[in-house]
């Protein structure tokens, strides 16, 4: 039920005027993807700096909280750039995204990364006095793993083909749908249905 509504929403999105305009312009897509990547450089660069500090490889003897505070605005700017350009790119191929497991994996990881970033990660980086070294290391590793995961899944959207069967089968459980998606990826990797960016 909910999946039928979701598919209808994605279909509507792809047929909006803006989405059609983007889809038919290679220049617009290339520009949006460039903006998306620049936002990503900003986001990953600043988060990497903070997480390296948490891992004990900070800048000189600068406290983590100071580095985190000074980079906070730029991390948010990077995220904002990505969240502004991402949905526009998505809209131009919404139905394809809907049918591509990598897209849903990216959304799941993105949700986790954002939630983690603004709660646990924020609290640990801003903690004064700093949290124990071991906890800081775990938090930094989870943060880096989540954001790199988001980036890899994003690349996966372009690499993996959409499934013939929609990911959201109204009769299947979440587990069976996930299994379908993974099976699909494995089968198609063998068959050589993996395309590049062109």
């Amino acid at each position, binding site marked *: 039920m909910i999946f039928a509504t979701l598919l209808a929403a994605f279909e509507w999105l792809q047929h909006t005027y803006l989405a059609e305009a983007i889809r038919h312009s290679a220049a617009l897509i290339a520009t949006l993807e460039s903006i998306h990547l620049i936002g990503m450089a900003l986001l990953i660069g600043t988060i990497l700096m903070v997480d390296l500090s948490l891992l004990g490889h900070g800048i000189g003897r600068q406290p983590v909280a100071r580095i985190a505070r*000074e*980079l906070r605005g730029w991390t948010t700017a990077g995220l904002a750039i990505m969240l502004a350009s991402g949905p526009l790119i998505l809209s131009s191929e919404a139905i394809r995204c809907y049918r591509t497991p990598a897209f849903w994996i990216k959304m799941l990881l993105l949700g986790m990364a954002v939630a983690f970033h603004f709660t646990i990660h924020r609290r640990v980086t801003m903690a004064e006095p700093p949290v124990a070294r071991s906890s800081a290391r775990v938090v930094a590793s989870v943060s880096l793993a989540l954001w790199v995961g988001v980036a890899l899944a994003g690349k996966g959207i372009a690499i993996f083909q959409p499934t013939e069967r929609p990911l959201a089968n109204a009769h299947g459980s979440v587990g069976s749908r996930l299994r379908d998606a993974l099976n699909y990826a494995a089968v198609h990797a063998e068959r050589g249905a993996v395309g590049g960016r062109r």
Partner: protein
Amino acid sequence: MFLLSICQWLDSTPLNTLLRQSNWAFPALDTIHTLGIVLVAGTIMLVDFRLLGLGLRSVPIAQLVARIVPATLWGFGLMVVSGGLLFSSEAVKMYHSPAFRIKVTLLALAGVNALIFHRTIYRDVAHWDLQSRAPARARLAGLLSLLFWIAIIAAGRAIAYAPGYDLG
């Protein structure tokens, strides 16, 4: 032309055949290349922002550079190795791509900019290390670096989308 014959030779090597025949080589190299470029641009931007007085203002510049440059070099290594392999998988096609030429030129300019910065004004960083805003020449280097890397990313995307031409 000389460059074209090099590209034609590259397209005829066993390495090229290997890369083309594999379903995974291109997507995998493309992914590594993107991560590498994001790492380079993301870390260099931090230094650029610091030079321009837009971020990390309380951090001494030399300390920031010492910490960040190894990460930048790692990213650069990933980017160059994967980029070289991607190039050799379709050398003649890249020869005919204006976007590719622009990207290589921009990379060279970014390199020259960094080299000049490190060889000149950065030599006496000790004198302006703690200033929240660096001297004009260092700010210029930071601004140019920022613009070059944004343009490199855009040119990279254009390689994938812009058509090739017969450039002779």
